[in-house]
């Protein structure tokens, strides 16, 4: 039996954008693995290709962007060769995604409850009343105080923090094997950010989840992730366990990034 099981292996992934000014190599030949039950971080500045990497895992890239090569192995099956129908069975059920901006990731014309119930019905084959029950349970688990009110609220009626809690509930509701968190707290105020991160930290460890955590904030990555990849201009500059990377960064880019973060700490 293998000791380490990788839930996700990305191999030599290339994503190019075909623009009128030529080809932009947004992600150029990156490889990394996420071990089952571990939190893996990607840190980098804007435009480094981290979000693109995240959405490519669910093949959510549209023209002029195109995946030009590589493999994305999820439980040893290549997602890039899968057809749309098979992929739809994975999206939102085996792999779920939480975006930065909760305001734009919910549909504004449906209530929070309807949207989460829809995800449950699509993937779990349960009755509507059972789906509603499950939704309540997950909203509660994400420490939403007025569960019933939130269920019947439209997205614009909720605060940013509550919306993101509901988003996390939606990501968890089908018990996915991998959750991709793309800057889950960047749009929130500092005091709310810390609440959401505490919640994520608790859920991740309690339920032993496998996570791809994407952030531009080195401090958050350092506290949340066991292993981390530093991305810069579409390439992985350095990829190691977080502690050794923090104590002993080897590449110039990592060193200068860490210096900036530390200069702004106290």
């Amino acid at each position, binding site marked *: 039996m293998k000791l380490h099981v990788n839930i996700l292996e990305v191999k030599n992934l290339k994503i190019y954008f075909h623009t009128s000014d030529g080809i932009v190599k947004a992600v150029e030949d990156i490889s990394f693995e996420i071990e089952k039950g571990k939190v893996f971080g990607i840190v980098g500045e804007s435009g480094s290709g981290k979000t693109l990497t995240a959405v490519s895992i669910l093949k959510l890239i549209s023209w002029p962007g195109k995946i030009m090569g590589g493999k994305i192995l999820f439980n040893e099956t290549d997602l890039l060769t899968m057809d749309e129908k098979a992929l739809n069975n994975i999206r939102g059920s085996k792999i779920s995604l939480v975006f930065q901006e909760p305001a734009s990731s919910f549909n504004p014309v449906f209530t929070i409850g309807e949207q989460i119930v829809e995800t449950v019905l699509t993937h779990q084959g349960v009755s509507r009343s059972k789906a509603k029950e499950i939704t309540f349970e997950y909203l509660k688990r994400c420490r939403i105080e007025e569960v019933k009110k939130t269920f019947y609220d439209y997205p614009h009626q909720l605060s940013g923090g509550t919306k993101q809690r509901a988003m996390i509930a939606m990501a968890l509701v089908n018990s996915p094997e991998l959750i991709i968190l793309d800057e889950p707290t960047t749009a929130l105020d500092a005091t709310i950010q810390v609440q959401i991160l505490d919640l994520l930290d608790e859920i991740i460890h309690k339920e032993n989840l496998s996570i791809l955590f994407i952030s531009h904030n080195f401090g958050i990555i350092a506290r949340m992730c066991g292993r981390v990849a530093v991305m810069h201009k579409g390439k992985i500059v350095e990829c190691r366990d977080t*502690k050794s990377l*923090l*104590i002993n960064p080897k590449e110039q880019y990592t060193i200068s990034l860490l210096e*900036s973060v*530390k200069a702004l700490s106290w």
Partner: protein
Amino acid sequence: MVIVKCDRLKKRFFGRAGIVKAVDDVSLEIERAEAFGLVGESGCGKTTLGKIILGVLKPDSGNVILGTKKMQVIFQSSYNSLDPKMNISDILSEGLIIKGTGQGEIKRKVEAALDLVKLPKEALKKYPHQFSGGERQRIAVGRAVLTDPEFIVCDEPVSSLDVTIQLQILNLLKEIQKRFGITYLFISHDLRVIKFMCNRLAVMRYGKVLETGPVDYIYSNPSHPYTRSLLSSHFYDIIKNDASLKL
């Protein structure tokens, strides 16, 4: 010497959801040549207070006593604050033209400002969209400094920038302050930025100033529970040199 004195300022806004007390009985004093920080979360009234001090908004009651008329402002988003249809040369010289400065003087000053914010001369012919976020913010800083201000309101000037670029812009602002003795009102939601830039600060919430004092003192002895929670909310953001992490 006090350059800005706010006395019992109040400003209300009337919305559909009722009255919002954006600034609620705020008094504070900013000393000449200091960097005064104004910190708080979104909606706490910090930008409204900045606008009242600049004279852009009229307070409902209270008054602002200014020790200078030479004021400038640097905004958060250089996308909105630089006119996309003007080239950099026009953007930089506009303020001077309004002041009635002569052609030769304008040319000399614009070039000096460009040099100060470390942009090449070729930048003058280009348009805002041809620059990165950091470069655009340099242009905004250059434009602010050009009219020889004594007081600049910096409203979240680095909030939309990456951390390495943040540091560059903050260092530039520090350098400018040292060289010209400019006073800053530095508005930010980020306590890290305030700590780096300012010597004194005021913490705002719901339109009120909760506490005021020297940065070093408040960071080590926050008296208001909200200040304490703001400070502790940076737990995830900061990396200490000893790498004391819970891994």
